[in-house]
């Protein structure tokens, strides 16, 4: 809406209530009327409406960013609510973007929300992201992080990056003009299984609040031109001991994304991350076999002698355990090999199967020949065999 103030020749472009809504911005010289106009013109794409996307979307909507694009294929689960503050208990089972749209409309009805209820892939990323000024990475896999980065480099749109695990957070701005990109910092992702996901390793609920808010801050700074964005710097947050610092991120001339520009097309990063490190043991003996939860239950019921080893941590054992299992946390596995017999069948399990796959490999390397990994860990055991074992 455009109007002219009585007695003034200065064109104004906000409704009267918007001057009040944004008054605390308007009186900041670093933002002011020009900055607020820039925010209203801005189009920001948030990939992921989860832990990081929640606070980022809330603050960007409140700040008056004109268009927010939201990409998320997932539905709200009760286990999200400890940290994903866009969503509430009444939203369980709804698509996150539907829940987000309602919440954001309540915070600021002047914000236009564009919803993309899909998984971001190499095939759809360009079409979704074209026309957005910057992209905020609130994803939760290495595959999508490399995809978002390469997308940003190819489109020339800054990648407002944040990432979290347990008590540690990282934030930066990648792919800005003359700045480094995510591949300059981490040229390749870890092999599947080496780094646990938050679902297995845990995350402090407040941590995405801290880091997502930093991402929103950076987005607002980039849009308004205020201050010095985190280009060429990585902000590291250790919430457990309150160590907060920035380190330098250099642009790598050999980077295939922003250096040599060898990456000209988006590729299915899912495949990139799904390729495990060559495992000499796998080559020699074949991959560690899985055992399905129902099959294990039948074997145990039939009296088949099996050593069932739980490689989770003691605090997880306190939450839930499979009857008859023996706790040997992964970190102490080697020092407790003597408790196991190489001649007996051994089934290892953890929460969802990642840590136990490592344990199975290490047992085999130590000469234990009859080792299986419980597929889906105690989570699938709870769902498919014994609902009395709490799922967490």
């Amino acid at each position: 809406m455009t109007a002219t103030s009585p007695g003034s020749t200065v064109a104004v472009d906000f409704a009267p209530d918007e001057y009040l809504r944004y008054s605390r911005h308007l009186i900041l010289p670093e933002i002011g009327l020009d900055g607020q106009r820039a925010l209203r013109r801005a189009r920001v794409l948030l990939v992921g409406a989860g832990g990081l996307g929640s606070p980022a979307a809330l603050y960007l909507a409140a700040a008056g960013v004109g268009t927010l694009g939201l990409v998320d294929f997932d539905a709200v689960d009760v286990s999200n609510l400890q940290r994903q503050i866009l969503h509430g208990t009444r939203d369980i089972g709804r698509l996150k973007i539907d829940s987000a749209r309602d919440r954001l409309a309540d915070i600021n009805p002047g914000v236009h929300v564009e919803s993309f209820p899909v998984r971001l892939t190499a095939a759809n990323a360009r079409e979704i992201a074209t026309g957005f000024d910057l992209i905020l990475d609130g994803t939760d896999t290495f595959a999508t992080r490399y995809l978002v980065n390469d997308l940003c480099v190819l489109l020339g749109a800054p990648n407002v990056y944040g990432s979290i695990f347990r008590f540690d957070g990282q934030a930066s701005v990648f792919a800005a003009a003359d700045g480094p990109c995510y591949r300059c910092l981490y040229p390749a992702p870890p092999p599947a299984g080496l780094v646990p996901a938050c679902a297995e390793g845990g995350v402090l609920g407040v941590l995405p609040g801290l880091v997502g808010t930093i991402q929103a801050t950076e987005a607002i700074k980039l849009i308004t031109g205020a201050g010095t964005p985190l280009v060429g710097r990585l902000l590291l947050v250790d919430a457990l001991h309150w160590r907060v610092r920035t380190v330098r991120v250099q642009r790598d001339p050999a980077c295939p994304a922003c250096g040599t520009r060898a990456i000209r097309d988006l590729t299915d990063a899912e495949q990139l991350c799904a390729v495990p490190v060559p495992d000499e043991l796998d080559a020699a003996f074949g991959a560690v076999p899985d055992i399905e939860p129902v099959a294990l239950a039948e074997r145990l019921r039939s009296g088949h002698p099996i050593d069932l080893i739980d490689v989770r941590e003691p605090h997880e054992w306190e939450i839930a355990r499979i009857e008859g299992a023996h706790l040997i946390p992964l970190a102490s596995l080697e020092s407790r090999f003597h408790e196991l017999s190489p001649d007996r069948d051994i089934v290892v399990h953890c929460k969802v199967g990642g840590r136990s796959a490592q344990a199975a490999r290490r047992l085999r390397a130590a000469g234990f020949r009859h080792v299986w990994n419980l597929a889906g860990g105690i989570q699938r055991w709870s769902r498919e065999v014994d609902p009395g074992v709490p799922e967490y």
Partner: protein
Amino acid sequence: MRINLPSVLTPLAGGHHTLDATGDTVGQAIDDIARRFPALSPRLRDSHGAPYPFVTIYLNDEDIRFLGGFETPVRPSDELSVVPAVAGG
């Protein structure tokens, strides 16, 4: 010198989030803590002793890949920080 570890690695380092290490190069300092905490070793470098592309090691505020990698000389007053890639969101 002091080596800073992220909280994800502290359980593998006896619960310490900082460790004192000795050595004339980054690689020697990493060797020192890997020897004292064997479970930490595979999280810092690969089975051939080479740095991972998904674990950045900083000497003070500089990425060692742009210095001399594990051969980069260090002084006792320096500080190393291990910064692994994390993907949670």
